[in-house]
């Protein structure tokens, strides 16, 4: 418990420092509110539009979470698949990179056509944006499995599946966790960007649309409120990954303390 409490002191301190710094910059450099509003202003407009923001956060957060989970599972699966053979890796590793490099705006129409409006295409976009790091880190982790242990498994005529499940996946897990951390951040930004291009549907705007709209209308404070809330979603996912990582790794700190 105490240690758990201790865990949260440093980030808290840093957050406070961060806000102070922010306020400081705004005040000292007299930065115009339409460029960078003061934290106070952001807080104000956050309170003002609270209900709307909460709604939006739930909508966007839900999509991001789902996309993240999908990206995580599919990513690990694909990464493991590529880990099966050098040929597969050389052939299909680069193409997966494409996923990350094609700007959403280019394929947004296709998305809307294929996945319809709102959540579905947002989720799809999230997956596309967040999956590569998971693939890469899974593959990387699998590739750096201790060759001596691989030899051990080979000696016991272990099936590919066994080798993967009992050896490669466990020893890749630290690397996979790292990949998921990256994916957590990406899935939030992915969801929001998707909402920029295909989001605002029906009466209820998700965070992405709120951000775009408030940019257009110089409601910078509102925009930053929305951005901060979206990043809270991100931190939530991040925390999720850390908990997962702790569960997976804490007990064999012989390797990873």
């Amino acid at each position, binding site marked *: 418990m105490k240690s758990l409490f201790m865990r949260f002191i440093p980030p808290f301190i840093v957050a406070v420092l961060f806000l102070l710094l922010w306020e400081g910059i705004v005040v000292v450099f007299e930065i115009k509110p339409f*460029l960078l509003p003061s934290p106070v202003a952001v807080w104000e407009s956050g309170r003002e539009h609270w209900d709307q923001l909460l709604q939006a956060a739930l909508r966007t957060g839900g999509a991001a979470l789902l996309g993240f989970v999908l990206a995580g599972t599919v990513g690990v699966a694909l990464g493991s698949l590529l880990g099966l053979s050098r040929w597969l890796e050389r052939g299909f590793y680069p193409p997966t990179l494409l996923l990350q490099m094609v700007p959403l705006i280019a394929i947004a129409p296709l998305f809307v056509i294929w996945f319809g409006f709102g959540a579905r295409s947002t989720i799809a976009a999230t997956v596309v944006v967040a999956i590569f790091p998971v693939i890469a880190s899974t593959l990387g982790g699998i590739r750096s499995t201790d060759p001596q242990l691989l030899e051990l498994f080979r000696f016991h005529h272990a099936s590919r599946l066994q080798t993967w499940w009992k050896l490669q996946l466990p020893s890749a897990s630290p690397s996979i966790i790292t990949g998921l951390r990256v994916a957590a951040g990406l899935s939030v930004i992915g969801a929001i960007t998707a909402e920029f291009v*295909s989001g605002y549907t029906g009466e209820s705007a998700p965070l992405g649309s709120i951000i775009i709209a408030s940019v257009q209308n110089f409601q910078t404070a509102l925009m930053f409120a929305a951005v901060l809330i979206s990043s809270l979603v991100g931190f939530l996912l991040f925390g999720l990954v850390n908990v997962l990582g702790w569960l997976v790794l804490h007990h064999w700190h012989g390797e990873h303390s």
Partner: protein
Amino acid sequence: KPSTPPPGSEGPARVRLQLNWVPEPQFGGIYEARRLGLLETDSLAVDVRPGSGGISAPQLVATGEVEFGIVGGSQILQINQEGGELVALFAVYQHDPHAIMVPEGSPFQTIEQLWQSPQATIGAESSLAFIRALNEQFSASEQARFVAYNLPAFRAGRQSASQCFMTAEPVTLELEGFRTRVFSAAKASGFDPYNTVLVTRRSYLDSNPEVCREMVDAFTRGWTSYTRTPEKTNQLLSELNPAMSLEAMNLTAKRQLPLILDAQTDALGIGCMTSDRWTSIAERLVALRLLDRVPDVEALYRWPFGAQPSSEDTD
């Protein structure tokens, strides 16, 4: 996924209308119509979908994802060339609202000065039709520096001028306390396409003329009423789009009137379109190398509705 019941079957036709931006006076007449119940009759049920980024609406109509959409005038010609089959039914803006704005105190008095000044930094998507028209008109000097549209940057003085919707950005900025001078692009270049045009797919028009007719009626009455008394609907809009203040809504509603109502609409009625206008738009686009050839403009729009028999001369 709502779909149109075959003629004769029961229940209203459930159709979707895709806007190309968030709720604001540019779509005031539509929300007015909805407020008046014209979009929820026993024969028609319209699901109005606000847009975002303004990118996907034309594709969505062209692919049949939605039955109706609001798009820009030149977009119709451009996407049809790329395989879309859009037909314009109602042109809200008779004139192109695109404009170039400069800060009130700016030394630049005309677009021409801007375009030919070596120092000007212009926040404009220089490949958009209306910018190209201006370039062609004023043979932009080599040094003229076009940068991405970025309103805060303009506001912060990093751009000497910025493209805008004369009904949108200037209003917001004014309420922000930042006064601007606005130069209509259409007036400067003579390229004046319709804007905020109601479109549908040709195949849909052919198979559901009644639905389209009722839609057009709703538009006509909605816009007529809105151009007279926008207040109630503006109230509604500012609820749908909290990012835009009621004040801004009202001001915009006022500013856009001259774009919607002019001599021609007095003669032919609100939302009207003519072959001459369409032809000149198309010809200009060809000149700007944004269109390969002038299409058959008759197939391009339908006004007044039902004047021509449906399904005819479609290439």
